[in-house]
């Protein structure tokens, strides 16, 4: 039985006191223990940013990759060994800016990994420039006259990319995000969880208080049906994206099962690599 202690790493995160990412770290560890996943079977991939440092702060197979590419690396890990639990985490700049392309394609490909974005509407590590989720008019170091661009909606983007599990939470509610992460890991397919994770140093607008006051809880809406894609789209529209809970979920065949001749086979990482004489003969036949 894995315990929280097993998941702890004796390194103090270099995050600012109060940074939302602490809660996300705690929630991932708690979810893994609740699901009784052994740490050696848990791979945490992360991108580059303050949030990206997360993979070094728990004792698993942690991989800190490149800015924007962690999702692609994570898919490679899962394709090689589907017995591993693969979680990928990073910032909004990492996931929707420089890595936006991989986000869309991972969603439609539907590989069984969980993708957590710590969305602080700003670039933290590079000290406060605007991000793809910064609203129009937002004042940052790189938009001193106000952001001239409109933000993207991560949830609507995930919906249109055909993601099979979409949820959103807020760092101020660890219990809730722990539950979302557990559901995401259990979901067989690509699970996207956007977590509002305040940057207390560079973002003075989207603060803990802001989210406490403005976020709509889906649990309070008995009419909400998370299998209805249109309803999901509308809900995000109506709340301007400030909504938490399970937004959408639909079982869809996972990518590995969809690959020809792959379903039910031994993991790639467990294959016997030496070919028999017959196998060699078959490989060459076409060219004789």
């Amino acid at each position, binding site marked *: 039985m894995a315990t929280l202690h097993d998941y702890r790493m004796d390194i103090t995160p270099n995050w600012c006191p109060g940074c939302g990412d602490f809660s996300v770290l705690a929630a991932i560890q708690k979810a893994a223990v609740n699901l009784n996943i052994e740490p*050696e079977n848990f791979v945490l991939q992360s991108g580059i940013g303050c949030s990206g440092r997360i993979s070094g702060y728990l004792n698993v197979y942690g991989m800190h990759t490149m800015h924007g590419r962690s999702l692609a690396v994570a898919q490679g890990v899962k394709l*090689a060994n589907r017995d591993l639990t693969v979680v990928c985490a990073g910032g909004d700049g990492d996931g929707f800016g420089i890595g936006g392309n991989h986000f869309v394609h991972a969603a439609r490909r539907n590989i069984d990994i969980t993708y957590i974005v710590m969305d602080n509407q700003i670039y933290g590590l590079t000290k406060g420039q605007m991000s793809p989720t910064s609203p129009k008019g937002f004042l940052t170091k790189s938009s001193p006259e106000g952001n001239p661009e409109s933000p993207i909606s991560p949830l609507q983007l995930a919906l249109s990319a055909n993601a099979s599990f979409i949820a959103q939470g807020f760092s101020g509610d660890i219990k809730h995000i722990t539950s979302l992460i557990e559901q995401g890991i259990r979901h067989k397919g690509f699970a996207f969880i956007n977590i509002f994770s305040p940057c207390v140093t560079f973002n003075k607008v989207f603060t803990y208080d802001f989210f406490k006051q403005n976020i709509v809880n889906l649990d309070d809406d008995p009419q909400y049906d998370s299998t209805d894609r249109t309803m999901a789209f509308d809900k995000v529209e109506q709340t301007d994206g400030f909504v938490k809970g399970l937004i959408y979920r639909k079982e869809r065949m996972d990518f590995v099962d969809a690959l020809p001749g792959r379903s039910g086979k031994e993991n790639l990482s467990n294959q016997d690599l030496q070919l028999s004489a017959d196998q060699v003969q078959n490989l060459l036949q076409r060219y004789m």
Partner: protein
Amino acid sequence: MNIKSEVSCLVGGMQGEGIESVGEILAKALGRNGYYLFGYRNFSSRIKGGHSDFHLRIGKDPVYNASERFELILAFDHESIELHQRSLIDGGVILFDPKTVKIDQITIRGGIQSIAFPFSDMAAELGSKQMKNMVAVGAACALFDQPIGVFGDAVREQFAKKGEAIVEKNMAAVKKGHEFLQELMDTRFPLEKQPQSGQRLFLSGNDAISIGAVLGGCRFMAGYPITPASDILENLVQMLPNYGGVAVQTEDELAAIAMVIGAGYAGTRAMTATAGPGISLMQEAIGLAGATETPIVIVDTQRGGPSSGMATKIEQSDLHAMITGTHGEAPRIVLAPSTVEEAMLDMPKAFNLAEKYQCPVFVASDLVLSTSKQTCEMANLQLEDIQIDRGKRVAETELAMSGDRVYKRFAITDDGITARSIPGQKKGMHHVTGIEHGPTGHPSENPANRVAQMSKRARKLQCVPMNDAIKYEGIPQAEVLLIGFGSTYGAIREARLWMQKEGAAVGHVHVRMLHPLPAAEISQYTEKAKTIIVVEQNSTGQLANLLKQHISIHAKLHPCLKFDGVPISPSEITSFCRELI
């Protein structure tokens, strides 16, 4: 009549007309008759329309490059004649299709014969114009005095999927071409008969790379389509599932190499294949693989650059990108096959090196090597000798006994190599990052650690074995030394043979590993040489500069460069040499 030990023909027409199938069938049948073949395809970026041609060289002895001179041109368009008639030998023959070639609009040079051959009409009579290619096969076979029998099997294999009726029709087309030529003229270029051979393959460098990957234990491939590397993705998508593997087409090259790093980290032999712009996109990830000591294999089928450059033309200009590409300094190994056989065997080698030295390994192919087809002798391949060496891995028992909570994946060792633990291994957990890190993989900016880790990674390459890192051919004490890498091997070899025939003391070093450079092995020959000519297909002399960096041969080194997109020919090399000596 002169019996020939070697003949060449060119088939040319509009792209998309199936020109290559003429070469394919001729090659298959003649290969079974015991001849050695080299097939070079000259194509453009257009899919349909636009001229393309296929050069087939047929020899009694092994051939490693396209011939400069043809005995025969089979012309389905004007360009086939206009562009290539000067390459015909005196007494050479052009058989053209009067349906598509208006011969009175072309000035045919003296000493050659052009004959209208109604390929299309004959094919139409037999039921389908498409079979004009098969009529051409029959004509070529008669001209080279080849028995028509062996073509039966080749045609059958090509068309078997389409049913017996189609096979019969195509065979009839071959016969018709054969008969018609015999009525027209004598057997003009009879090929010397060849005794039965051992088992052989006829395949392209890209085919060989794909096969070599599977033989070498590759079980994951990720790629993004690009000329001339796409064949490798397409081949492996078909092949890998039969051996428990997977190939996926990604959204871009950034994703391709990132997935490969993930799969390599998770313990699978993984590769990508790309060219030109793809290699540029992969630069950052090469550094990540180097810094995280992750084994990956990257095939670069070099083509004309920079930018989109000349996508369908040969160039060998990615040397710098492969050897030093990425920011900072990251270890890697670069192999450079020069024949189809080597392309196949370098793949298992690349995977072994990648896992042994825990770094990216490049296989530097180029457009001509990747797309040309060559005869490959099974006896030379010795595939049964291929060994899989997975490098240093930490054993479960060792981990079980360890008192550490975090495995020291990057502990400093004498040879720089640390045993890997693979996700799933109990107590093997550790961190991996492109940030400079200490033994457990956690970030560290400590100056001493930085030096220790950088040196550790660099030290690994000092142990890479240098046997087979060059190949040498020619007389032992050569005064004139030719040096090259990649697909120019055949042209350099032929140039050397010609010059030796004229009495020159010529030798040839072909560099088979570009990084780490086998400087000591090369020096053995450069020391004795008076004149060193480095032959390469780029404009700045990348190999020449690399050699100068490692060996002091500045005064006697002469770069022989070609960067017009056309494969260098033996006579270009010999005339360069003659001017120098």
